[in-house]
């Protein structure tokens, strides 16, 4: 075992990302204090482009809660939400965020000097992530006496049909009508189309970034992806995000051209299915570096690829993009998706994260690992943990499991 821990290779573009993320948060903070501007909260895969078409500044609480997790503050604040009736068994994004709010804490203070999360004029969700986002937003709607609107998704979708798309597009149109009085003006169709077009460009570039993981050795890891996906989540629909991913892609392409590995001496390539364990990104990343094993692809980072978006059909294409998402699909579709990803990225095995409080992003509870291992001839490992609640995670057990899994891969 090496005395010195290997370090993850630095991505130079991260400097740009830090700046644009800071600008994003500072911009929303300023908007929330400006009576002439409006702030909308939006779920991570909610109708952001529509909100941008109305000129709202868009804030994403899931991103905020992921920051609580990554800064290892989430577990500290979850109990405060539990105490007001929100169970420790439900989404720990919700409980960490509400708990932190109840205690007057936000990690944005330390990062950007922002005093508090922005007070919204409206909260808009899409239940395609889960029902918990609706409950989460409703809590704040009651807290602040502001309207909460949403789109109710279809679940367990096999083939996406015209009926699915029409149903969601209809809800989006109805949502637009409900947003008009809140915005104080009608939807600016040109601005809306522009946002949809920029989201599409952002999405295409983000996909290309992630596909640099198909190179051997891989140019980036899942852990890099979880950090660099920030702009795809909170800045999609803007030129800023497009510019950022052009810069990042060029850097990663250079890595490929020069044969630079994200994980030095890459021996094995893995797929990560499920949520990140936000508070343990660094130790996990370092363990995989030590094991010379690269997590080359994931379902999670791919969740912000919306190549169906089309500025000529903004409502319909948004409806299709947000319904063809992995998370709302039936298991056979999900299994085909993972099988294709494993083939494209030449993976040796799959790690499933059974995220205690996130059943919608957990796919190891209904026999999928066993079915896919049989189909692909690739072994799997399931790690028990959680996206934010580190009380549900045994670090030593996870470390031993991962080490043993790589030992197993090494035996051939």
């Amino acid at each position, binding site marked *: *075992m090496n005395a010195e821990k290997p370090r993850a290779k630095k991505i130079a573009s991260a400097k740009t990302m830090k700046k644009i993320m800071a600008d994003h948060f500072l911009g929303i903070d300023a908007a929330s204090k400006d009576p002439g501007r409006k702030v909308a909260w939006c779920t991570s895969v909610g109708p952001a482009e529509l909100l941008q078409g109305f000129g709202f500044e868009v804030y994403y609480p899931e991103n905020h809660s992921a920051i609580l997790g990554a800064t290892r503050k989430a577990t500290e604040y979850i109990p405060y939400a539990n105490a007001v009736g929100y169970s420790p068994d439900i989404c720990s994004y919700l409980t960490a965020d509400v708990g932190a709010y109840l205690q007057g804490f936000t990690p944005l203070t330390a990062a950007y000097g922002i005093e508090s999360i922005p007070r919204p004029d409206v909260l808009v969700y899409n239940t395609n992530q889960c029902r918990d986002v609706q409950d989460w937003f409703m809590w704040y709607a009651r807290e602040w006496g502001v309207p909460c609107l949403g789109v109710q998704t279809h679940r367990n979708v096999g083939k996406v049909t015209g009926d699915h798309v029409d149903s969601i597009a209809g809800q989006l149109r109805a949502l637009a009508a409900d947003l008009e009085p809140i915005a104080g003006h009608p939807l600016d169709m040109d601005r809306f189309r522009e946002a949809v077009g920029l989201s599409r460009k952002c999405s295409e570039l983000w996909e290309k970034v992630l596909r640099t993981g198909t190179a051997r050795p891989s140019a980036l890891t899942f852990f890099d992806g979880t950090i660099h996906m920030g702009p795809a989540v909170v800045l999609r629909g803007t030129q800023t995000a497009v510019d950022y991913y052009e810069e990042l892609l060029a850097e990663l392409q250079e890595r490929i051209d020069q044969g630079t590995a994200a994980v030095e001496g890459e021996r094995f390539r893995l797929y990560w299915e499920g949520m990140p364990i936000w508070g343990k990104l660094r130790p996990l990343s370092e363990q995989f570096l030590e094991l010379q094993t690269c997590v080359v692809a994931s379902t999670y980072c791919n969740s912000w690829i919306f190549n169906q978006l089309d500025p000529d059909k903004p409502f319909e294409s948004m409806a299709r993009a947000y319904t063809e998402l992995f998370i709302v699909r039936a298991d056979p579709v999900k299994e085909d998706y993972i099988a294709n990803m494993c083939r494209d990225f030449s993976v040796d095995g799959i790690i499933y994260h059974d995220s205690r409080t996130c059943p919608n992003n957990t796919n190891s509870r209904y026999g999928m690992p066993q079915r896919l*291992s049989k189909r692909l001839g690739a*072994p799997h490992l*399931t790690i*028990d943990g959680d996206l934010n609640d580190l009380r*549900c*995670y*045994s670090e*030593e*057990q996870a470390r*031993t*499991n991962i*080490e*043993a899994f790589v*030992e*197993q891969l090494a*035996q*051939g």
Partner: protein
Amino acid sequence: MNYFAGVDVGSAATKCAVIDDKLHVHGLGLCDSGADFKAAALAAFEQAMGLAGIERDRIKAVVATGYGRTNVDFAAERRTEIDCHARGAYHYFPRAITVIDIGGQDNKVIELDSKGRRITFSMNRKCAAGTGSFIEEMAVRLKIPLENISDLASQSRDPKVSIGSYCTVFAMTEILGKIRDGVKVEDLAHAALVSVARRVLETKAFTGEVVLSGGVVANNQIMREILADLLKVDVQLPPDPQHLGAFGAALVAAGLQGGL
């Protein structure tokens, strides 16, 4: 003759096995892991060497395993306990087998093919139910010396007594309720061991031959009967099941030195 050692620093006990280059066991060491894994590893190692009647300089290589494997600074290499239990079990039963290790803090189920390669493995979820800790806690609550649990369970005459709770804390509450209802202590001891075995049953669909290892099995011979009854497969017990991981680590050490 060359000698090799394996040290298994578990959550509850630290074990050591010293073997020769023909892979015969010469000495075994055992002590509580306590709060100082390094000291425990050294104590078990010295105990095993003492019983083997050999000096330190005759040990050609040491391999460490178990939760405290990184604390064994005199080891040449470290392997996971999953690897070592598998190797140890396959040495005695060289065929397609499933290894069940019930340890102090976790249990492991490892499936091997006929060549000894791992096909799958899994560990218990993060909970003490199904592990040695559960039996220890029950012994404390019932004020029964831990080493007497197995004998007591053997005297059970009412196999219908069962503990159904998934959670260790709830299981303890359930036991207290049964004490209040006058259930005999030997039936409770038996029910507790069955409860541990049932948690193992949940980890996979068992089909072929099973080999047991770990301290819970070593100290509760009745576990073999209970598991055979529940799993409905052939259940084998290797020599010194509590030391199987240490023995597997010693096999790795011998392999490192070309002793295999």
